[in-house]
């Protein structure tokens, strides 16, 4: 592999990794607070793809994007209120089964509403501009993705470390009951987590699908699981960890495909997961384990 092709693939990998990172944040934040693998998160991301198709059909892109963001956030919060909140005091397994049920429902609902055939994703013209750097060419979206990811993560870190709602989130994830006793509105805080997670998933979905061009009802399930792996890799509960994990998985996957091992690229992600769980269950940046694993 020459240096140019290597750089080209690396760029693609970083771009994919950026989208993964944005989705992985949603997993890591929800897990940090509810101790729940939100299996439906990948499907929320897929639904955001469909929202974009339909809003682009009637609006220009600068109106569509806010519409998609709002729609996805609404979906995320509704799911939290309807499917997770009633089970807050049930065993952890029931809430996880509920998450699997929601994922199943969203997939079936979208198959029903939009058919199982892949739908083409609308192009936002300026994102598709091809830029040329020497021998390397890349569309604008490939360059924007990692930059946007880093900017959003920076903003999110500010929010979590320096605002009142951020402090509430940290408190709830440390100890829900004590946080409640201190006068923190736990339910609102949890909803806020879902708002942020879904918002980032929507941004991730716009970036991801602009590159992939098609959406179908199951296009969220595998990327969703991969992003969860990314979150575990970085250390569940840690936002910088999820971002690093996302980039690592995105780059590894692209490189494996480039080397001709595309059949193994999914298997590799899960192998990575198992190795991490065995060697360092707290992940790269996780807090020192209490009794999670």
């Amino acid at each position: 592999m020459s240096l140019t092709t290597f750089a080209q693939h690396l760029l693609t990998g970083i771009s994919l990794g950026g989208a993964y990172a944005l989705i992985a944040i949603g997993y890591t934040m929800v897990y940090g607070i509810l101790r729940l693998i939100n299996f439906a998160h990948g499907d929320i991301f897929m639904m955001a793809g469909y929202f974009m198709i339909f809003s682009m059909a009637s609006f220009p892109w600068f109106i569509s994007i806010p519409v998609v963001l709002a729609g996805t956030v609404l979906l995320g919060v509704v799911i939290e209120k309807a499917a997770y909140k009633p089970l807050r005091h049930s065993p952890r397994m029931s809430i996880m089964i509920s998450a699997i049920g929601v994922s199943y429902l969203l997939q079936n609902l979208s198959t029903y509403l939009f058919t199982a055939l892949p739908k083409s994703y609308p192009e936002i013209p300026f994102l598709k501009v091809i830029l040329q750097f020497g021998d390397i060419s890349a569309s604008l979206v490939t360059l924007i993705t990692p930059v946007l990811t880093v900017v959003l993560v920076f903003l999110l870190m500010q929010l979590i470390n320096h605002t009142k709602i951020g402090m509430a989130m940290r408190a709830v994830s440390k100890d829900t009951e004590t946080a409640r006793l201190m006068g923190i509105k736990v339910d609102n805080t949890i909803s806020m987590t879902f708002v942020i997670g879904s918002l980032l998933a929507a941004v991730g979905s716009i970036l991801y699908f602009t590159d992939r061009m098609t959406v179908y009802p199951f296009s969220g399930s595998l990327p969703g699981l991969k992003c969860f792996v990314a979150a575990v890799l970085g250390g569940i509960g840690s936002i910088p960890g999820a971002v690093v994990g996302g980039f690592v998985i995105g780059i590894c996957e692209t490189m494996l495909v480039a080397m001709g091992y595309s059949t193994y690229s999914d298997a590799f992600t899960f192998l990575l997961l198992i190795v991490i769980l065995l060697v360092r269950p707290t992940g790269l940046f996780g807090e020192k384990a209490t009794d999670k694993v």
Partner: protein
Amino acid sequence: MKQKKTRDLVLSLIVCVAVLAVLGWLQANAKAHSYAISIIERSVIYAVVAVAMNMLTGFTGLFSLGQAGFMALGAYTTAILTIPVEVRPSVYYVSGIAPWLENVHLPVYAALIVGGLVAAVFAILVGIPVLRLKSDYLAIATLGFAEIIRALLASPALETVTNGSFGLNNIPKFKNIFEPVVISALCIFIMILLINSSYGRAFKAIREDDIAAESMGINLFKHKELAFVISSFFTGIAGGLLGIYMRSIDTKTFQITLTYNILLIVVLGGIGSITGSIIGSFLINGGQEWLRFFDEPHFIGEYQIPLFRTGFRMVIYSILLMVVVLFWQRGIMGNKEFSWDGLFGLFKKKDKKGGKA
């Protein structure tokens, strides 16, 4: 007391004979009832996997999501060993079959057991590292293993064995409806024996509190591994049966959705109830067919009722499942087993309030 036992035995025998009679009648009119037969066959096969999953989730407290992977192993092994030698060239028309495998052929029953053993061997290997993990980490790790198995089965390196992404077909079908029903019943019976043995009690102790169980002298790892391996063995056999039932398989058959389906059967039937899993399997497999009503367009006079079209069935189905998960977490049977006393108790609840003699 003794009278009651005789009564239960007689009633159970009557039901068994009645079931066999119905099956015999269906078999005698196989042409007319092929639809019902296929639903029954699928239900009993799913019931085996559901009971095997329940043994892990409900009785040992290990939440594993690797069922599809172990079913794939069983199905591929059984299929490779039972496809008639003379049609193999046409099945493996793309890449050819590996020379060492060319003439290996086993009868169905032997092939099913080999399929189960292959799944069990993988479970031993997978279990050693993975069973150290708990709850959701275990779930996601086993799910990962299932995906890895699927990727390996489809990989070009195994093309001459598994036929890669083309899958396998021409798997010989069941001779009659009794074959899958009897094999499944036998599998479930063995699992019931295991759960009622001292091993089963150890499993339940681990589920309730693993630290307490360990301090009572139960070897945690040994028992978890045992439950995992035996569950995988029967999952593998059920996978083999599913392969025979479907007659052609490829790796897409064994996606995560299959595991989710099994999980929903277990949840609907009640986590920790074997009879619940069996009932759940029949309800879900049958229900999916009965709900077909929603998939067809319906008219009132000239007016076509909206919403009724392909896919609506699955939406209704998943909403029903969500309702069960949210409002009826105990499922049909909770963690109780079916008993004649329980059945009669349903009809005379009022008397019970007075207290038992």
